């Protein structure tokens, strides 16, 4: 929906001096407030770090960031994945198309450099995304990073215009929803088995977190790829055709 915007502004051009003055005043004011806060800041609090370190052994992972994101504050992450879904629904076209997820189009002029880059780089990126997902349990990494990398691989594949993704097909919609669906399914199942929402049993916590992250990785990747496709419209490469209507 938002990609249809073409706003024209015919009013008077802003006075650059006034804009500068306003920006300067607001920035200065903000800095003064910040300084005041920091001066008055009593540093006796270490935040939640000791709590996190104390409970890390029972969280199923050893990386504190992953433990906070997917165990201690998993509910926030679940809602954030819902936020991503909202953004994607907002930019999807209004009609659902019945064509399949990916179609190949015959392109007459092959770009040799681009094609070989795709052949060499895309599988490596795919592998590395899988590694990042796996490494999230012990080191910096995890679903968001892996998903972003996968989306990058998709963007690389889009460059030749050979592959066209239909983001409104049932397959694409299932992939977009699978991150949130997996999270909700695990969370609700744990109410049944453990008696509390998102309360992982200690032995299976690592596996369940990896399961949730795998679903989230797929959703994040296709959501980011669809955002790219909806914003980029290169003439000749047929990206606009990804939004052909189903009627």
């Amino acid at each position, binding site marked *: 929906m938002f990609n249809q915007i073409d706003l024209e502004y015919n009013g008077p051009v802003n006075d650059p001096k006034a804009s500068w003055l306003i920006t300067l005043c607001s920035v200065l004011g903000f800095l003064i407030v910040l300084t005041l806060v920091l001066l008055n800041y009593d540093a006796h609090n270490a935040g939640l770090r000791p709590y996190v370190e104390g409970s890390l052994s029972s969280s199923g992972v050893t990386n504190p960031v992953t433990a906070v994101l997917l165990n201690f504050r998993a509910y926030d992450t679940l*809602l954030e994945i*819902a*936020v991503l879904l909202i*953004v994607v629904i*907002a930019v999807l076209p209004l009609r659902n198309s019945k064509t399949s997820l990916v179609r190949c189009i015959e392109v007459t002029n092959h770009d040799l450099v681009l094609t070989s880059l795709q052949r060499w780089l895309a599988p490596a990126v795919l592998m590395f995304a899988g590694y990042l997902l796996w490494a999230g349990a012990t080191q910096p990494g995890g679903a968001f990073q892996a998903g972003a990398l996968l989306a990058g691989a998709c963007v690389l594949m889009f460059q030749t215009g050979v592959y066209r993704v239909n983001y409104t097909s049932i397959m694409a919609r299932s992939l977009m929803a699978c991150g*949130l669906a997996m999270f909700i399914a695990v969370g609700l199942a744990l109410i049944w088995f453990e008696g509390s929402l998102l309360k992982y049993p200690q032995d299976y916590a690592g596996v369940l977190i990896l399961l949730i992250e795998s679903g989230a990785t797929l959703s994040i990747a296709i959501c980011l790829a669809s955002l790219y496709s909806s914003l980029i419209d290169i003439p000749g490469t047929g990206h606009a055709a990804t939004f052909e209507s189903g009627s």
Partner: protein
Amino acid sequence: MTSLSSSLLLPIIVFLPLIAALVGFILSRNTFQGQLNVGFAFVQFLIVVLMTILFLDEQSYQSAVYQIGSWGAPLGIDLVVDGFSILMIGLTGLLTLILTIYGAAYYADDPKSLRFWPLWWLLIAGLNALFVSGDAFNIYVCLEIIGLSAAALVALQSTRASLEAALRYLLVGLLGSLFYLMAIAILYRSHGTLDLAQIAASSGNGLPDQVAMILITIGLLLKIALFPLHFWLPQAHANAPTPVSAILSALVVKASLYVLIKFWFEVLSGSTTFGASQVLGVLGGIAIVYGSWKAFRATQLKVLIAYSTVAQLGYIFLLFPLSEHAANTSSFSGSSFSGSSFSGSASQAAIYFIVAHACAKAAMFLSAGNLILSQGSGDIAQLKGIATREPLNVLIFTIAGVSLIGLPPSAGFIAKWLLLTTSIESGQWWWVLVVLSGGLLAAMYLFKILSLAFDNTLDDGAVQRQPKALSSKLLTSSALVLALITLALGFNAEFILNISNPPVGVSGI
């Protein structure tokens, strides 16, 4: 786990709308889509009713807590429900049911329904999650969900005006969220926790708390659209699809208001001052007069109703000066989290105002949507003589208008009565003048519509356009139910006040 309690239902009312959103998103358009969504709304309503009954029955007006993942407050996230939030949840459940029925009829044969239903349910999930949240950062995430899905729903209309309004709404909402996030960062630095109850327990009148309170107030005022920051609201609310307009005015602005009230009276009540509350009250007073005047000058029906929302929100902000005074006189200790600070007669008036305005404004938007559908145009001038063709919708509009003006017997009358008595009791008589003049101005802009609607003189043929199809029975009857609820609330004031305000707490003061 053996006995059922209201806190066990807390995660359900967040997850049920999320599941409904996923089902609506994955299932393609089909014939039973409308029934499916109404079914979800009905189940949610039943759960909310059950939860309210359990809460009133078991809790003796204490707040109920659900620990997600059994981690407990500082490390994990707690879901908390108290009297105010159970009232908001109940209101959300009721309005969701009626507006979903309306939406099912409104979007019966429209390809936009594919995008409408997932966004709609995600918005409801965000509202429910916000009202049960007990964590400062979790509230930020909920505000994000609400703001993004609301902006996307406004853009669903796909007209140029609605896209511009949606974009502005989105940017204003994001700016407000960033102010709030900044405040949360400051609070986390000085308190070392994100849990609202723990922040409240350790909050005083320090500088970080004051700066955080200022940032939260500015950010949320942007989202609530109090007078100088209201610039985005009329266009966004007027250009949205009708069920979206209704929920935006009835619940979405109230969600930010809920957060502001929670911080102002419970979490950071130590750092609020009499002067600041007077400023909010003055802004509210200006909003009443200015919003009513702009509503009177509006030429589009939905713009008129949207400006009326700006005015009505002003009344709720009179709560701040009035209850600040009450807190001063009754030697109340400001930093307890029991919610007793938010149980004076001023807060009773504000809560009642929130409920009354939500029902009346939703009914008014629905009936206005029906009139526009029937007339084929949103121009006020085109409404001439419409009472003969759409008598029921004009009746609904009138009932909602009576409540907004504050005439008996309606919910709006009780709300204004509570507000007037509170201002006289607290000695701040100047607010009485504002409330009374606001009522007169509301009567001016609403009677303008009604006199046009009942005007049957055929002066020239151009005004009387070709009659369109009459609005469907389902659309009209769901609006009628809301109007009747508005009337019924005028007779059952005690019920609402008892849910939100524990009699224990009142006698404790």
